[in-house]
Structures are given as structure tokens and as C-alpha cells.
């Protein structure tokens, strides 16, 4: 298995955001983490990627790089698409100077082709649509052939067609890289189209873990409330 999280606990200013969360994701599988805003979904990704420190618990990965696709792409706006995608290859201490310019151009072209955006190397992020920026950030994420890919609300702010396209690319990248992936999302369409398993968080606790089909069968009060998007149920907005 590629990611195993055991008894993860994280608090901010004495408020417990994640309380004893555990899950596993195998290679070539996608886990979707769902829940209300503020339920700690993005915190899980930040803990796995090392952006923040955990209070206790374990995050076990089987080695290799961890890539992350951010909610609003987080492309470097002062760099063009080529430099964005090849950033890690050019700037990372262990990779700096390893590739010639021609090799970098070849790698970037391959990654752009994989996300359906060939020939935009010279464009800057401000010249791209939201969906294109997201796909460029996918290409940037996979440039070091990561074993784990984390997606933080990859379809947020996109129209339904662009969302579908992004969902297709998430599945395609999983198939191409055989990486273990975690997708944080609010959208049922993203869950249905991409996820192999689903984890629902509420108030720092895992309240559901199962397959997308099980989620859609609405067998628990939590899943029923989430799928029906109703205010009536055990989950209360703060």
C-alpha cells in the first residue's frame, strides 16, 4: 500500500481539527475525502504532504515523491508554463543540473500532452483559463513521477464541463502513473467519476468509510444528509 494514515490528530489553537483519523490508500487507487467546509479535509492533505506538522499519529508512505494539486492551481504567476512544469527539475537540489534544456523541453512536452495542452509552453498562467491552469498544475505535479498525488478540491470554481474534463484527467493520471491518489472534494460528480473509496469527515471524526456506491445508498444519517444536501441531519454547520 502506498499511503497509510494511523490515528492522526491535529489541533489549531486548542481546537481539534482531526481526531484519530485512520485510512489506507493502495497504489493505483483513489480515495475521496468529503465533508463540510472546515471539517479538516485539506488539513489531511497538508499533513501528508508535510506542509504542516501533526500533533500525533503516523503517516506511512512507501517512498517516492508526493505531489499536490492545489485548490486554485497555485501556479507561479511570474513563470511561464514551461518553467512552472519544469520547476522541480530545475530548482530541486537533487535534480538541479541533471537535465539539459532539450531533455526538459521533451519532458514538459510529454506532460502537457498528457493533460491535453500541447504547445502552450510560452504562455503565462494569467493567459490561461481556470481549467487550463488546473491541468497545467496536474502536469507540474506529475513531472517527478510521484507515487502519491493529492488533489485539493480539483474542480472548485470550474463549470460542469471543465469539471468533467478534470475528473477524466484525474482517472487518466492514476492509470498512467499507478499512483495512490487522494481527492478532497464536495462534489458528488467527482466522487462518482473518480473515487474507488470514500472517507467522510465531520467535526474531526471519520463518520463514513466505504465505496461511492455505499455512499450513494444513503444507509447512514450522515451519508443521507450529504447526498441529499439537506440541512436536516446529524451534521450541523458552524
Amino acid at each position: 500500500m502506498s499511503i497509510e494514515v494511523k490515528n492522526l490528530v491535529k489541533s489549531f489553537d486548542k481546537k481539534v481539527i482531526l481526531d484519530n483519523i485512520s485510512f489506507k490508500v493502495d497504489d493505483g487507487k483513489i480515495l475521496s475525502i468529503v465533508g463540510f467546509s472546515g471539517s479538516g479535509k485539506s488539513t489531511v492533505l497538508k499533513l501528508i504532504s508535510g506542509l504542516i506538522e501533526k500533533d500525533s499519529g503516523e503517516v506511512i508512505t512507501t517512498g517516492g515523491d508526493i505531489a499536490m494539486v492545489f485548490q486554485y492551481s497555485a501556479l507561479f504567476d511570474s513563470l511561464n508554463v514551461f518553467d512552472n512544469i519544469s520547476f522541480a527539475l530545475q530548482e530541486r537540489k537533487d535534480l538541479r543540473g541533471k537535465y539539459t534544456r532539450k531533455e526538459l523541453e521533451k519532458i514538459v512536452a510529454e506532460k502537457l500532452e498528457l493533460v491535453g495542452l500541447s504547445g502552450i509552453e510560452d504562455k503565462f498562467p494569467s493567459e490561461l483559463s481556470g481549467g487550463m491552469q488546473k491541468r497545467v498544475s496536474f502536469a507540474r505535479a506529475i513531472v517527478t513521477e510521484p507515487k502519491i498525488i493529492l488533489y485539493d478540491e480539483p474542480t472548485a470554481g470550474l463549470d460542469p464541463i471543465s469539471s468533467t474534463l478534470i475528473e477524466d484527467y484525474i482517472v487518466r493520471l492514476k492509470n498512467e502513473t499507478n499512483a495512490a491518489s487522494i481527492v478532497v472534494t464536495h462534489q458528488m460528480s467527482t466522487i462518482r467519476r473518480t473515487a474507488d473509496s470514500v472517507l467522510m469527515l465531520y467535526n474531526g471524526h471519520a463518520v463514513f468509510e466505504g465505496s461511492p456506491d455505499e455512499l450513494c445508498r444513503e444507509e447512514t444519517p450522515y451519508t443521507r444528509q450529504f447526498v441529499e444536501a439537506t440541512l436536516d441531519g446529524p451534521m450541523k454547520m458552524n
Partner: protein
Amino acid sequence: MKIYYKATYTYKLLKGFMQTAESLISTLGSIVMFGIEFIKGLRDKPTTIKELMYQCYRFGVTSLPITLSIVGMTSVIVAMQVAGEMVKQGGGNYVGMLVAILMVREEAVIMAGFAIISMIGSSLASEIATMKVTEQVDAIQVLKVNPVHYLFTPRVLAGTLMMPIVVIISALIGILGGGVASNLVSGLSYKAYFDSVWFGLNTHDLNVCIMKSFAFGFVISLISCSCGMDAKDGAKGVGLATTKAVVWSFVAIVIVDLIFAAACFY
């Protein structure tokens, strides 16, 4: 039964004072930590000549018009105020010396520092703060590149290297402006003015001026980058980081100036 105490003004004042003190210590701590991290990063050469040249251009060239205007006008004002009186009192031969010493020891450095803080320091802080709140800094970190090394190195190096150049050009323009103003206001000849300049300046003043400029450049760029890196909470955070960078840089260069004055002239 719960008992509620009404907060007194003294309590509120003390609480506000404690919060301000905490914020000051926290900011100072993070600037020191980022400074240490920056110095550690120098060994890895985490920047390119191209990026360094761009930051040098940004720091040195784009700031020059405003810096020269401020320093030039300050020296003209000083010369206008003192030249007439000094010539009347028979001290015309000392006007050049006075302006030159004032420029080289204080005005050029401190005025250039203020101009650089306003133009470049604020720009560095807001640039890095925007990258921080839009998760670009997180993206750098996830890609296993040290964001402090990557972002600070070219900016702090450029600031440290370019500040003396900006100050020297500013001081020259200041001395020149003082000469023109003295001539126009009090009829002091250019020869008398520049003889006095030549007589008044010494190597020690110039050395201190250059060393102080290096220190100012380092301090301004480090504080600006650090305040940017500490930003949080969206657009409001960017604004706060920029303000903090400007205020802290102003205070820091005055303290550095005081240290140099005490150490080098007394």
C-alpha cells in the same frame, strides 16, 4: 452562579500592550530565523545569474529616479537653508564640506534607504505575501524546493549588493545639487564649493557610508521578504505584511544607523 467582571481600561491597555509586545517578539524571531535560513541556503547556490540580475535591476535601477529625486532635493534644501547664512558669516568655504559630510555620513544613506523601503521593500513584501496566501509558497515546498532559499537568495543578495551603488550615485547627485543651490542662492563659486567638498571628505566617511549601505540593503530586503513570508489570511494579510515590512524596515535602518554612528564616529 457565574460572576462576570467588566474589563477595566487598565486591563484593556495592559492586554493591548502585551499583544503588541508578543507580536514584536514574534516578528523579530521570524526575521532572525529567516535570516539564518537564508545564510544556510547560500551554500546551495539556489539562484541563477539571470534571476540575480533581474532582482539587481529591480532594486538598483527601478528605484533610482525616486531615490535621486529625494536625495537631490534634500541636499538642495539643506544648501538653500545654510549657504546664504554661512556666506554672510564668512563661512562660505565650509558649505561644500558641510553638505558633503551630511550627504555621505547620513542623508544619502538614510534617504535612499527610505526611498528603497517605500518602493522596493513594499514590493518585495507584497509579492512574497501574495505568493504565500495563494499557496504558491506551499507549492514550492511540496515540490521539495526550500522556499526561503529560492525566494530570499536573489532578493536579499541583490538588495545587499545594489544598495551601495544606489547610495554612492545618490550622494554624488546630492553633493552636485548642493553646489548648484549654493551658487544660485548665495553666489558661492563652484570652485570654492568643490574645493571645500574635497577638503571635507575623507576615506573613513566613505568606507562607513559603503559599509552602512551594505547593511541597509541586507536589512531592508531581509525584513521585507520575511514579513511577506509571514503573511496569512488573504488580501488583508498581504496589506498587513506590506505595512509591517515598511514600518519594521524604517525602524531597523534607524537603529542600524545609530549603531554605525556610535561605533564609527565616537
